[in-house]
């Protein structure tokens, strides 16, 4: 992995960009494109349904369906976080008074700061280890999701 050592400025990515768009034209093919668009739709439903970002499904899908390397899958997954794609879903929650705006903004600021250091950490790891750690992260997330369903029944706690 030679490009880990060389800290290149963003402009040097031009060569890579060319190959990226070549993928559009011939490398990927129509079937590939359709798979990607359908994948986006499926992930979007999860986003609205569970209030999550979708990357947790997107990254493994990139690795196993499109054969991406772990680092590339994670970097590509971050692209969907750049535009406000969750806006439509958010509005529906907003109409039902199910949004705590202050808490949400605090979370957004925390993400912005923490995300950068997480990104740097990921780049410094070998792809294989990163893949394994991502697996552990998925298992942990699964446990959290499962626990959440049980938290409802026991919400009448002492400090309420």
């Amino acid at each position, binding site marked *: 992995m030679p*490009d880990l050592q060389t800290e290149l400025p963003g402009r040097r990515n031009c060569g890579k960009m060319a190959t990226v*768009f070549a993928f559009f034209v011939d490398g990927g093919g129509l079937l590939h494109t359709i798979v990607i668009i359908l*994948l*986006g739709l499926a*992930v*979007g439903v*999860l*986003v*609205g*349904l569970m*209030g*999550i*970002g*979708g*990357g947790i499904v997107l990254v*493994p899908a990139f690795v196993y369906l499109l054969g991406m390397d772990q*680092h*590339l899958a*994670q*970097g*590509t*997954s*971050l*692209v969907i976080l*750049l535009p406000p794609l*969750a806006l*439509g*879903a*958010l509005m*529906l*929650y*907003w109409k039902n008074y199910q*949004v*705590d*705006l202050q808490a949400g*903004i*605090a*979370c*957004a600021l*925390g*993400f*912005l700061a923490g*995300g*950068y250091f*997480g*990104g*740097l*950490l990921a*780049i410094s790891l070998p792809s294989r*280890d990163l893949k*394994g750690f991502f*697996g*552990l*992260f998925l298992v942990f*997330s*699964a446990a*959290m*999701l*499962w626990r*959440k369903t049980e938290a409802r029944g026991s919400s009448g706690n002492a400090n309420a």
Partner: protein
Amino acid sequence: MPEGAPRLVAIFLMACLVGVLSGLFGVGGGVLLVPLLVLLFRFDQHRAQGTSLVALVPPTGLLAFLAYYRAHEVNLAVGLMIMPGVFFGGLLGSKFAQSLTPVRMRRVFAAFLFVLGIWQIVSAWRR
């Protein structure tokens, strides 16, 4: 749980930690944020999900994205093609979420993530 400013600071600090994981794994972080808001801050389930979506609207992943981009680990074309589906799927999904309490669905999803996670671990560190 403390109210007012201390509560917001606590949420901010929690989000910082989730943000590190978010950058480390290239995900949005909502998958951890939602359960943490419910378990630590006693949010109602729908409210936790709605609040988590607030954090996904501004480009909070921007700095993490730049870190990957500089290391040539981004496929921009695939990322762009995913977007329309995510937006419209998101609308569809939140409509569903309003009409049902998807406890069973969430368990199926959790089980799915668990299997996926085990698969990733095995395929990464097999030899």
